[in-house]
């Protein structure tokens, strides 16, 4: 069984995830509104309660890759001054 559940959900701000959520299950956010949560009851309930859409790991990775690629292209097109104070987005491999 996979250690994680993958999905997309829109961060609605305050209490989208709570202090208690962070203690109850693993949670990490990525570009493209991708969320990786612990594969347990509380993680699954959280994603469902947030109107999340479950993805396979490959689908989630593809969303992140597309976002990162777009962000890298955006960064490449910015001024040298912008680049001086912003790191180029790096590729992310989901856990």
């Amino acid at each position: 069984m996979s250690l994680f559940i993958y999905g997309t959900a829109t961060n609605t701000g305050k209490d989208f995830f709570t202090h208690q959520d962070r203690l109850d299950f693993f949670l990490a956010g990525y570009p493209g509104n991708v969320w990786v949560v612990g594969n347990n009851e509380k993680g699954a309930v959280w994603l469902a309660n947030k109107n999340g859409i479950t993805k396979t790991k490959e689908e989630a990775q593809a969303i992140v890759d597309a976002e990162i690629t777009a962000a890298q292209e955006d960064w490449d097109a910015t001024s040298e001054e912008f680049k001086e104070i912003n790191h180029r987005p790096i590729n992310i491999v989901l856990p």
Partner: protein
Amino acid sequence: MSQYNVLNGLKVRYLSADPPSPENGEVWYNSSAVRVEGVAGTGAWASGGSAPAGLSGGSMAGNNTDAMMWGGDTGGPPGAWPRTSYHYNGSSWTSDGTIPIAVNVTGQAGVGHTTAIMWGGNTPPGGQAAKTFEYNGSSWTAGGDLNQPRRYAYLTGAGPQTACIAMGGNPSLAKHENYNGSSWTAKTDFPSGANSIYGIGTQTATLGVSGNNGTTASWDGSSWTGIPSTLNNNRQYGAAGGANSNSAYVFGGGSSSAVELYNGTSWATQPSMSRARDNGGGSGISSNALIAGATYGNTSVEQFTIPFGTATISSS
């Protein structure tokens, strides 16, 4: 871990309400609740109210229930950079004041939104990297100029508006100076020059942390003493906060969501943020009220707390 007797002496404070930003390990008696209360538990980052914009190099002062955010780069020409500053009340953001110039990566300090202060920063073309501006709850006004221009002040700084600390900045500065509410006075250089040096604490108990190479030193008001470096480097363009040089957090920077706490002796890993935050600002005057700001293209905000614990004392 913070020690109660070091933070507060041996007497338990008698208060009618909970203190606004208690430290982990702090204990007090709440006469209204008729019980002993304290901060003890496991800290964690929760989502905060989404910021009005996701900008590069925005700055922030205050804590997770009373913060100010200003400045930042939209990625477009400086003339298009926003000049509205925003106040955070713990759940949502409200427009609150207009900064005098379009600027990003300023120095930052202040204990709350009505006492925010900024200095230096990047204001192309030409720049006003020596300027200081103070907020009074209704408007930003000019303060004393820095002795050392700090273009790209990179989210450094610590202390209240009338006693804050500036270190670092472009190009790789070690220069350190303190503000008294009207003028800056040069002090002994930080041991290592860096574009990004985080300052935490007060003018007599400062922790300086290089975001570039992790070099860390404490300032006692007269000299710097080297202490262990952070566990994770590079943290350039991350953020920091905390109560003093014995209770200091650094978080984010680069592609990292990692958080570390210095307790006066060593650095230890703390619960991580939900996502990496680069150049997003962040602050906190207490170990129990940190806030991590929005980043370029990402308006999400996170806030760190450690829950209260309570105990009722019975006579029988």
